[in-house]
């Protein structure tokens, strides 16, 4: 049976990138425990709008835990208290009447705040642009079954490829490192024969871009793995490190440093 509860929210409000920003307290009244966390915010927003106050901006789209749009730090944990769960799939039954909830945007220099809980994650796109692909023009592909891939490799590649690019890894990391995100794409493609030909260049360029964007380094805190909605393992970070060390030592040519943006 549905429970109803009253909550107090402490929400980061920031009008735009230049605004200072501040926490504002809101009452969330009569929240049904079947609501998702974002539905709870919808209710608060409708309420704010009725009072002529600007609603709280947050990114969201699929609300099914797959597009990677949503993301906010809920009581100190990116995506909130449920393991392997995005904020949009978090449900209010995990909270109780009277709870006070602090909601903050992802915090990282490479993720400037756009408004309220919305941040600019284009740095992650630029890491992929640096080399997170297989260069195969449409139409140039060989017959799909001409290259068998051991099931185990393919499964492992999938475990890495399942990343939704939400940025929770960066948000959770004490160093604001994007190592898990970058490693996941590098590993996905390095584990498959299709990714083979561009392997050395890919890892060098992607790591260079990751650094250029101003993310911190990896100190093996494992926070990223713990909050990752897709349970991506930090063993992929070890794999990225191995890939880079090998690539940098054996590649015949040099690559250039990269810049942000």
């Amino acid at each position, binding site marked *: 049976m549905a429970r109803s509860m009253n909550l107090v929210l402490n929400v980061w409000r920031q009008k735009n990138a230049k605004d200072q920003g501040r926490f504002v307290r809101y009452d969330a009244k009569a929240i049904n425990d079947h609501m998702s966390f974002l539905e709870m915010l919808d*209710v608060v927003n409708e309420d704010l709008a009725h009072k*002529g106050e600007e609603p709280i901006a947050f990114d969201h*789209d699929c609300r099914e835990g797959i597009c*990677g749009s949503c993301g906010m730090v809920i009581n100190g944990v990116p995506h909130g208290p449920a393991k392997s769960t995005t904020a949009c799939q978090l449900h209010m039954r995990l909270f109780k009447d009277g709870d006070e909830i602090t909601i903050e945007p992802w915090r990282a220099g490479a993720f400037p705040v756009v408004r309220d809980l919305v941040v600019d994650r284009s740095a992650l*796109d630029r890491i992929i642009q640096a080399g997170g692909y297989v260069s195969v023009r*449409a139409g140039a592909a060989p017959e*799909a079954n001409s290259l068998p891939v051991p099931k185990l490799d*393919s499964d492992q590649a*999938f475990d890495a*490829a399942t990343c939704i690019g939400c940025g929770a890894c960066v948000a959770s990391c004490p160093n604001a490192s994007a190592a898990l995100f970058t490693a996941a794409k590098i590993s996905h493609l390095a584990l498959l024969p299709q990714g083979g030909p561009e392997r050395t260049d890919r890892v060098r360029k992607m790591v260079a871009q990751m650094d250029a964007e101003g993310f911190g380094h990896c100190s093996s805190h494992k926070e990223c793995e713990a909050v990752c909605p897709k349970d991506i393992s930090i063993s992929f970070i070890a794999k990225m490190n191995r890939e880079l060390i090998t690539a940098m030592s054996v590649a015949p040519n040099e690559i250039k440093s990269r810049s942000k943006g």
Partner: protein
Amino acid sequence: MQLDSRAPTGPIEQRWNEARFKSKLVNPANRRKYKVIVVGSGLAGGAAAATFGELGYNVSCFCYQDSPRRAHSIAAQGGINAAKNYQNDGDSVYRLFYDTVKGGDFRARESNVYRLAELSVNIIDQCVAQGVPFAREYSGLLGNRSFGGAQVARTFYARGQTGQQLLLGAYQSLSKQIEQRTVKMHPRTEMLDLIVVDGVARGIVTRDLVTGKVSAHTADVVVLCSGGYGNVFYLSTNAKGCNTTATWRSHRRGAYFANPCFTQIHPTCIPQSGDYQSKLTLMSESLRNDGRVWVPKNLADLQRDPKNIPEADRDYYLERQYPSFGNLVPRDIASRRAKEMCDLGKGVGPEVAGVRRGVYLDFGDAVKRLGRDAVAERYDNLFQMYERITGENPYEVPMRMYPAIHYTMGGLWVDYNLMSTITGLFVGGEANFSDHGANRLGASALMQGLADGYFVLPVTVSNYLAGVKPGGVDESHPDVRRTVGEVEARIQRLMSIRGKRTPESFHRELGTLMWDYCGMARTEAGLKFALAKIPELKAEFYGNLSIVGSGEEYNIMLEKAGRTADFFELAELTCRDALDREESAGGHFREEHQTEEGEAQRNDDAFSYVAAWEFTGESLAPKLNKEPLSFEYVHPSQRSYK
């Protein structure tokens, strides 16, 4: 205007080849001079933009999300069809073609469907080469499953995340082109209008969702891949941002809108839990392979713990009504029977707006028969997802399911080349109406989006560009300035109403109206009622809308208001189309037109056509244009599942 489908004639197997050979080419050295706009970065748009970039055109790609990787295509779970016949179970291009025309209830164009089936095999090659980790067997070769009741196993899949993996493949190719500077990506940018100069599409007007800046982007060709309009029903399985603005605004500029009433329902979605519900979540159809659908026989049992309801008091209505297919009847039948049960007051679960909308999908027998481990092996991830949302454990308590809007077959009318009725405006993916007729088969939308994006549009758009001179229209052109002015005026109008109701509440009310009267089952009276009601609600919208903040900033209410405004107009057209189509076909079910068994009854003599609606002016009735359909290869027949 006479609708010319430009579909080639001759043997169907050779049509696409012929068309490709006949299409004109642009000299590689000149391609850079042509500016191509692609709206949308889903499977269709992402693939198209990447491919145009590879060909060397000067591409601009737009999406409303913060990254092209987040397009709605990402949510597709089940899989993608391709006539590879890797299972040696008798599949072929022809069979996929046949199944798709038949599945579409004979309301699609044969030439297009054949091309789709033909290209399906290239798609799999392309995606595998990109590193898409499709399911594999221990041999290292690709695995397949049978999907949505197909007799052959032709569906390729990547766990329950096929759409995600395919989209990431396209996104990665797109990223490479962005790096190479052949594609300029414009995320968080919404197309609000189409620029038409002398009857030719020459660009779009956009609003930067962060700064609110309205700007014009001119081009030599515009390609819309902006997805479907399922959110006209408010609650659907679509992503929250899915909208009709790009297609509707183009419609108002002269692109015909085809078959808007062909909308698809998915039978197994998690029911609404309250009036705050923001969207519905689809649960894979595969659940019906082992789950048994039932409702209590006695109204007194509705609130009772289902575990305590004895076998004798359960109505396994699908097994009762369809002894040979049982729980595996097609999507539309399963959906309508569920609705009937709930309309009879036999629904289960929470009461929302006075009705319990849900039926049980019970795994109790499956657990007894196969054991809990075997059931977990097949469905555990789905069960977890269900439990996360509902807080109920499907191993213990039967799941509750209810149908929801899932896909829209209708869309902008396009010819064989995917060009709309506006010269220079091409439409791909779910945004067009082209390949699925009145009903889409499972795992065919991904196929269509990628076929359009990787293989069809690159040929047909090049052919078009080869016939035009690049450039000639820029931001200072009077028609461009006028269109920008109109967009600004529209935003101004919405901002200045300063009423009391939020855009969200209007959208919700419109959606409920559409679902009730233009949803799973439609009647003349209901549609007429909706057609009377929508304008009233729309009038209230323009009189009592409230948007807080300004237009020159990130404003989620303004975004929502613009999309809702366009949904109002599309809703009206959808109801009109549904009223006009006096037959039942695929996803369009008119209660007046059913067989004695309650099956959809087509009327091929009168309605074997594409209804292409023409915008004639503000508050004027739209004009119906018909593209007659002829079937040379697959002959219309009535289906039966009894």
